[in-house]
C-alpha cells in the first residue's frame, strides 16, 4: 500500500524537493513495521544477553540443585525470576548459593534483594552489570504473538513462540494464559511482546501448549519497592515471606467477604456456593445404586489457588464441601451408623509434615445454625517458619434429625486464623432452610 502510494505520486522537475521528501516518507513508512514488530530471530539477537540461567548450587558439591531462568531489568545487575526457582536456597541458605550462567558461559553469584511470594517473584542482584535490562509493556491484545524465553531442560537459551490468551479472570492467581510450550527450566524467564518488551514472567505450564505467566505489572510493583530502598536487600527473607503470606490471606479473605455470594440448594438447605468468580464448584454426588437405602447429594468448591512455598508445600487453597444425606428405608440407628457417621470426617488438603507445621488442636461444640443444632469442630495447626499462618479445618454436622444429615467442611490451607473465622461465620449465616 505504501509502495503503491509512493509510485502513484506525480514526479516533475519542479518538484524535485517534493519527490525526495516523498521518497524518504515512503522509506520510513516501509521500514517502520520491520523495526517495531520483531520476529524470533530479532528477539534472539536482542535478548540473548539479557536472559540467564539461574542456579541453586550446593555449597559443598558445587553442583546445581535446581535451575530456572531470569532476566535483567531496571539496571544491568538486577535480575528478575520466580520465587519458586530460588526457593531451595531460601529454605536452606547455609547449604546453597545462587548463581547465574550467561549464554556466553559466564557465571557469578547472586543475592536476594526482595521477593513477592504471592506472585511467585524474586529480584536478585549480581555483583556487576551482566546484561542489558529489558523493558516492560502492557499485556497485548488477545491473539497477539508472544515470545517466551528461557533455558528449558538445561538445553540452553531458547525462544518459544506463542499466542496471548489474556488474563485468567476465573482464577485468584490472575495469570496470563498463553498458548506456548513452556518447559521446566524456563520458569522466571521473560515473555515478550512483538516489540521485544516484557509482558510477563514464565511461571507454570500444564502441557499441551497451556502455559501461564505472571503479569509484568506485579514485577514492576516489586521493582518500585526495590528502587525505593535503593536496591538494598531485605533484612529477613523468612519474615518477609511470612508477612506477605499473612497479608495476602487477610486481603483475599476480606475481598471474598465483600462479594455477593452465589447460593445453591443442597437437600433442603440453601448454602453459599461461589464466593467469587475465581471459585469453582463441582457436583460430587454419589451415583445412586438400586440397592442403596439412602440418597447422598454433595458439592465441592475450591479457589484453585496455590502459593508455592517449596516443592512439597503450597498454601492459599480454600475448599469447602456440602453433603446432604437422607433416607426413608433406614432406621435412625442404621442411618447414623451406616452412612452419616462415616461421612463425618475432614482431612487437610496439603501434605505439610512435622518440619512444616504443628499438630492440629481442635475445639468441638454444638452450635445453632438456621435454627438447627450442629456439632461443629474447628481445628488449627500453625506453620513453624511462617508465623501467623495456619491450616484451618472446620467441620459441622447437623444433629437431631433421625433420617437426615448435612455436613459442611471448610478447609483453608495457609491462612490467617482470624480472617478464616470471619469467613466461617459469614458462611454459616448464609446457610438457610429452603422455604
Amino acid at each position, binding site marked *: 500500500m505504501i509502495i503503491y502510494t509512493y509510485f502513484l505520486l506525480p514526479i516533475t522537475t519542479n518538484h524535485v524537493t517534493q519527490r525526495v521528501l516523498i521518497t524518504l516518507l515512503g522509506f520510513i513508512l516501509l521500514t517502520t513495521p520491520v523495526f517495531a514488530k520483531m520476529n524470533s530471530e530479532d528477539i534472539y539477537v536482542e535478548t540473548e544477553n539479557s536472559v540467564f540461567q539461574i542456579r541453586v548450587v550446593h555449597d559443598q558439591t558445587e553442583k546445581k540443585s535446581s535451575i530456572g531462568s531470569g532476566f535483567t531489568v531496571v539496571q544491568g545487575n538486577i535480575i528478575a525470576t520466580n520465587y519458586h526457582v530460588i526457593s531451595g536456597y531460601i529454605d536452606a541458605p547455609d547449604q546453597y548459593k545462587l548463581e547465574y550462567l550467561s549464554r556466553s558461559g559466564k557465571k557469578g553469584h547472586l543475592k536476594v534483594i526482595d521477593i513477592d511470594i504471592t506472585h511467585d517473584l524474586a529480584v536478585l542482584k549480581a555483583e556487576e552489570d551482566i546484561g542489558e535490562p529489558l523493558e516492560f509493556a502492557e499485556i497485548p491484545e488477545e491473539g497477539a504473538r508472544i515470545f517466551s524465553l528461557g533455558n528449558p531442560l538445561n538445553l540452553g537459551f531458547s525462544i518459544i513462540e506463542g499466542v496471548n490468551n489474556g488474563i485468567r479472570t476465573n482464577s485468584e492467581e490472575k495469570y496470563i494464559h498463553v498458548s506456548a510450550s513452556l518447559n521446566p527450566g524456563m520458569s522466571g524467564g521473560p515473555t515478550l511482546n512483538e516489540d521485544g518488551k516484557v509482558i510477563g514472567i514464565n511461571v507454570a505450564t500444564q502441557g499441551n501448549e497451556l502455559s501461564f505467566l505472571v503479569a509484568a505489572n506485579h514485577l514492576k510493583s516489586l521493582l518500585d519497592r526495590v528502587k525505593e530502598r535503593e536496591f538494598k536487600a531485605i533484612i529477613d527473607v523468612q519474615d518477609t515471606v511470612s508477612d506477605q503470606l499473612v497479608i495476602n490471606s487477610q486481603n483475599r479473605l476480606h475481598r471474598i467477604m465483600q462479594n455477593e455470594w452465589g447460593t445453591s440448594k443442597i437437600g433442603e438447605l440453601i448454602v453459599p456456593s461461589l464466593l467469587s468468580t475465581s471459585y469453582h464448584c463441582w457436583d460430587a454426588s454419589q451415583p445412586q445404586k438400586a440397592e442403596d437405602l439412602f440418597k447422598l447429594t454433595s458439592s465441592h468448591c475450591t479457589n484453585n489457588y496455590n502459593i508455592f512455598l517449596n516443592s512439597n508445600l503450597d498454601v492459599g487453597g480454600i475448599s469447602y464441601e456440602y453433603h446432604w444425606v437422607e433416607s426413608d428405608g433406614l432406621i*435412625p440407628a442404621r442411618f447414623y451408623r451406616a452412612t452419616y457417621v462415616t461421612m463425618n470426617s475432614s482431612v*487437610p488438603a496439603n501434605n505439610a509434615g512435622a518440619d512444616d507445621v504443628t*499438630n492440629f*488442636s*481442635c475445639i468441638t*461444640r454444638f452450635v*445453632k445454625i438456621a435454627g438447627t443444632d450442629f456439632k461443629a469442630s474447628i481445628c488449627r495447626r500453625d506453620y513453624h517458619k511462617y508465623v501467623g499462618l495456619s491450616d484451618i479445618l472446620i467441620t459441622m454436622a447437623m444433629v437431631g434429625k433421625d433420617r437426615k444429615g448435612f455436613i459442611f467442611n471448610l478447609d483453608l490451607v495457609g491462612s490467617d*486464623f482470624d480472617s478464616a473465622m470471619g469467613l466461617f461465620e459469614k458462611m454459616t449465616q448464609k446457610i438457610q432452610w429452603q422455604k
Partner: protein
Amino acid sequence: MAKVIIEVCRRGLQQFHPISNDRITIGRAFDNDIILSESTVSAHHLLIEGDLDAGLNITNLSNENITKLNKTVLPSDVKQAVSLPVDIIAGSLKLRVLSSETAVAPTQIQKSKGIFHQLSHPFWAISLLIFTLFVFIADEYLATPTDKSIWQYVVIKYTSYLYLLLFFLVIVGISRLASHRWDVFPALTTASLLFLIPELVDYAGETISYYFSDDTVSNIMKNIVSVLLLPILLTLFIIHVAHSKTLQAIGISLLVSTPLIAHHILNFIEEAAAPDFVHLPNYNKQLSHWDIRQQETISIVDFITEADKKLGDEVFQEIVGKNENENEN
C-alpha cells in the same frame, strides 16, 4: 494309730504313699518300696527307717545328685533323725514325709452363686451364644446402608463365628486335658462373652463419646477390655470349673493371656514411641441419633470466641516454645 505318709510332688500333682513298714527305700530301681520314674533320682536314693513312736531316720543312699532335708544338704550314707513333717529334695523331685494325722486344708466349696455360674447354666449359655450371634448380625446390619437379604448378613459374619468356635474348642479342650471333664457350657459362656462384651463396649463407647464430645473415656474402656477381658473370663472359668483359689486362678489366667497382653502392651509402647506429629486432626466425629449430650448448644459467635481463646493460645505457645528451643540450640 498314726501312719507315715510319703507325698511325691510332680508337675503340680501330688501322689501319696501310706507306709506300713518300718523300713522303706525310695528310688528308681524296681526293688524299691516307692518307685520314682524321675531321671535325676538315683536307683536307690533314700532309706526311711523307724516309726512315729520311736522316731524316724532318713539315710541318703545316693552319691549322685544332691539330697536335702528341710533345705539342708544330707551327705551320702548319713543317717539323720527327723521329726515330721519333713521336706526332702531328691535330685529334682520334691517329697514330703507327713503324719497321717496332719491337718488337711479346708474343703473348697463349689460356687453355686454369681453371674458367671448362672450364665454357665446350659439354658443361659445357649441363650448367650444366640444373643452373641444376634449381635454379630445386628452389627453388620446397622453398618450396611444397602438392601440385602437376612442371609447375606448372616453369611458375611462367618469369620466371627469361626473365631468364636475356635476359642470355644481351645477352652473346652484345655479344660478336658486338665480336669478330664467336658465343661462345655462354661466354655461356651466364656467364648460368647469374649466376643459379645467388646461389641457392647464399642456401642456404649460410641454413646459415651457423643455424650462427652470426647473419645477419651471410650478409648480407655476399649483398651481395658482388650487387655483385661480374656484374663478375667479365664479366671472366672477356672474358679467355676476347677474350683481353684482366686489368686491361683488369676495367676493361671494371666499366664495363658500373656501373649495377648504382651501384644497390647507392645502396641501401647509403639504408639507412645511413635512420632509426635499426626497429619490428621483429632476431633470427636461421633454422631448419635439419640442426641443425648453434655454440652449445650451455643451461638456461632460464642463458638468462634471460644475457638479464638483456646486455639489461639495453645498453638502460638507451641510455636513460640519451639522457636525458643531452636534459638537456644
